C-alpha cells in the first residue's frame, strides 16, 4: 500500500465520522493554539521590554556613587563622582562614546503667571545622544555655554505645556528658577512615558556648570549626582563598564579587595533581569498550555481505541485479503497523525490570530513565534504517532479469523 492510498483511506475514514473527528481535533486545536499564544505573547513581551529599553539607549551606562556604609549605618549616597572623574574618563576611555554628568536640583519654574514645579538636570551636550533625546526645535547648548556657565536651558514638552499656556513660541523666552533667569534655546521632541510610567518630557536641561555654580546655594558644588555614559555599541557596554570601573578605581585610589565607592549599571543588565522574568512566565504558561495538549492527545488516543474496536471486522477483512500487520498499523497511525496534523494546523491559525489580537490590544510588538509554529508541527506529528501507536498496534495484532467473526 503506497503512501498516497494510505492517506486517501485515512481521510475517507475520518470524513465518515466528521463530528467525532472534529471533537477529537478540538483537544489538539486548543492545546496547540494555547502553546502558540503563550510562546508568542512571551516573545512579544520580551521584545517590548527590549524596545523600551533601547529607546532609552540600549548602550547606556549609569554610574552612581555607592551608598556608603559606616559601622553598619547607611550614610546615604556618597559624593564620590567629581569633575576629575569626568575629565579622566573623557580622556582615557576606549569603549565609552559619550559621557555626561548629571547634577539635579529641584526648582519652581515660573513664566509670567504660570508655575511648574519641576527639576533641573545639569548635563553636558552629549546627554541627548546618551538618552536618545532629539531636539524638536532650537539648539542644544554648546561647550562654550558649559565654560561660561550660561543661563540657558533646553526643555521638554510637558514643561512647555505647563508654562506657555497661551501658545507662545517658547524659544527665546526666559523662564525663572528661583533667582536665576534661564533662556530657552531648544525644545525636545516628545518621548512619552518610560517603562516605570515616568513622564520623560517633564525635563529641563541646563549646562551642569550652571547648576553647580549658580544653584548650589552659597558654596559651589564639586560632586555629581551621577554620570551617564554610552558605549560605542550595545555589545560593548559590558567592556565599557569594566573599563570605567578600572579607571574610577584607580582614580579613587581603591586598593584590590576594597569595594567600589560607586555603582555601574548597564542597560544590558536591566534587560537580562527583565527578560529573565518574562522568560520564567513564558515557560510557566507554556507548560500549562502543554498540559492541555497532553489532554488533547489522550482524547485522540481514546477515540483511536474506539475506532479500532468499531472497525474490527474491517480490520479482519483487510487482513484476509492481504493486508500485512504493517499495513494495518500504518493505516491507523496515519489516521491519528492526520487528525492531529489538521488539528494542529487549525490550532496554529487560531493561535497566531489570538497572539496578534493580544499583542495589538496590549500595544506590544506583534511577533509570531516561528519556532513555536515549527515545533507545533513536529509536536503534532509526534502526538499523532505517540497517542495513535497503541491503538494502531492493537489493530495490527488482531487475529483475522477472530476479527472477521466479531459482531
Amino acid at each position, binding site marked *: 500500500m503506497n503512501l498516497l492510498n494510505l492517506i486517501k483511506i485515512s481521510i475517507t475514514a475520518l470524513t465518515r465520522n466528521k463530528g467525532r473527528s472534529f471533537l477529537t481535533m478540538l483537544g489538539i486545536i486548543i492545546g496547540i493554539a494555547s502553546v502558540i499564544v503563550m510562546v508568542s505573547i512571551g516573545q512579544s513581551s520580551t521584545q517590548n521590554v527590549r524596545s523600551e529599553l533601547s529607546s532609552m539607549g540600549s548602550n547606556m551606562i549609569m554610574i552612581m556613587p555607592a551608598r556608603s556604609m559606616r559601622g553598619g549605618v547607611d550614610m546615604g549616597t556618597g559624593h564620590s563622582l567629581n569633575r576629575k572623574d569626568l575629565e579622566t574618563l573623557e580622556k582615557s576611555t576606549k569603549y565609552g562614546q559619550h559621557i555626561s554628568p548629571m547634577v539635579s536640583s529641584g526648582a519652581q519654574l515660573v513664566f509670567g503667571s504660570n508655575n511648574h514645579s519641576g527639576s533641573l538636570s545639569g548635563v553636558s551636550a552629549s546627554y541627548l545622544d546618551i538618552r536618545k533625546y532629539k531636539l524638536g526645535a532650537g539648539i542644544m547648548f554648546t561647550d562654550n555655554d558649559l565654560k561660561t556657565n550660561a543661563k540657558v536651558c533646553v526643555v521638554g514638552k510637558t514643561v512647555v505645556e505647563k508654562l506657555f499656556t497661551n501658545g507662545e513660541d517658547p524659544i527665546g523666552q526666559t523662564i525663572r528658577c528661583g533667582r536665576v533667569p534661564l533662556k530657552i534655546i531648544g525644545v525636545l521632541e516628545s518621548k512619552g512615558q518610560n517603562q516605570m510610567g515616568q513622564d520623560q518630557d517633564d525635563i529641563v536641561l541646563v549646562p551642569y556648570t550652571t547648576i553647580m555654580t549658580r544653584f548650589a546655594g552659597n558654596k559651589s558644588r564639586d560632586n555629581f549626582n551621577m554620570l551617564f555614559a554610552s558605549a560605542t555599541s550595545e555589545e560593548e557596554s559590558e567592556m565599557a563598564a569594566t573599563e570605567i570601573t578600572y579607571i574610577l578605581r584607580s582614580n579613587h585610589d581603591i586598593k584590590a579587595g576594597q569595594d567600589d565607592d560607586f555603582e555601574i549599571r548597564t542597560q544590558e543588565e536591566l534587560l537580562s533581569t527583565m527578560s529573565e522574568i518574562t522568560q520564567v512566565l513564558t515557560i510557566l504558561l507554556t507548560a500549562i498550555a502543554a498540559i492541555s495538549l497532553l489532554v488533547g492527545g489522550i482524547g485522540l488516543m481514546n477515540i483511536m481505541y474506539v475506532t479500532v474496536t468499531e472497525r474490527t471486522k474491517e480490520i479482519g477483512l483487510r487482513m484476509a*485479503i*492481504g493486508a*500485512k500487520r504493517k499495513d494495518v498499523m500504518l493505516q491507523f497511525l496515519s489516521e491519528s497523525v492526520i487528525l492531529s496534523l489538521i488539528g494542529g494546523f487549525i490550532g496554529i491559525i487560531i493561535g497566531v490570530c489570538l497572539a496578534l489580537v493580544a499583542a495589538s490590544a496590549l500595544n506590544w510588538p506583534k511577533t509570531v513565534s516561528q519556532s513555536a509554529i515549527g515545533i507545533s508541527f513536529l509536536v503534532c506529528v509526534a502526538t499523532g504517532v505517540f497517542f495513535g501507536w497503541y491503538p494502531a498496534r492493537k489493530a495490527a495484532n488482531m487475529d*483475522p479469523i477472530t476479527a472477521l467473526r466479531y459482531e
Partner: protein
Amino acid sequence: MENEAIIQIRDLHREFVVGSETVHALNGINFSICRGEFVSIMGTSGSGKSTLLNILGCLDKPSSGEYIINGTSVNKLNINQLSTLRNRQIGFVFQNYNLLARTTAIDNVQLPLLYNSNISAKERKERAIAALEAVKLQGRMDHFPNQLSGGQQQRVAIARAIVNDPVIILADEATGNLDTRTSYEIMTLFQELHSKGKTIAFVTHEPDIATFTTRTIKLRDGQIVLDENIQQQSAAEALAEYEKNMKHTMI
C-alpha cells in the same frame, strides 16, 4: 493442466486448546483439489468446515500435517508471506459479504489490489470494472453497500474475490443469508465462473446447493466421511424451474 493438483492436504490436524480441553476440529484430513474443480464441503454444524476453509485460505495454520497450495508449502511461510499469498492466490467470499460500509462497489472490489504494489491505479480500476462486469453489476459501480440488495452485495463480494485472479475461490456459506431464488442466482454466477476455469471450494450445509458443484467432501467430527464426484446440476435451470413454480403458486 486439468489434473494439476493446486491444493494438496496430507494428514491435516487442527486442535484448539480451551482450558483443559482439547478440541480436535480437524482430525487427519487428506485430499487434493485440481485446477477447475468446483468442490462443495458439507457437514453438520461443528464438523470443522470453517476451520478447514480458514486453513485453505491461509488465515490459520494446521497444528500438524501438510498443506501445499500451488506448489508452496504453507507451513514454512511467515506471517507476511501468508498475507502476500492470500493477496495473490486466494479469493474469499463470506456469508455476511463483509463489504466496507460507505465505500462504493468499485472501491470495495479494488481493495485487494491496493495491497499489491505491482498494480498501478489505472490497472486496478480496469480490473475492478472487469470483475464487476463479470458479476453483472456494471450499472452499480458507484453504489454503496446499503443501496444494494443482499444478492447484489454478495455479487460485489464475489467480484472482490476474483479481482486478483486467484488460484482458488473460497466461499463459506456464501448463500447462507440469501433466499432460495437469490441463492440460485449466486450459484448460477459461481457456475459461470467455474465454466470459465475458476477453481472453487464452497462450504455449505444445504444439500440442494451442493448439487450445483462437481464434487462433494463431507466432514463429520473433523474427519472426511465422504469424498465423491457428483453429477452437476445447472443452477440456471433450477432457477427457471423455481420461478415457474412460484408463478403457479401465485396463481
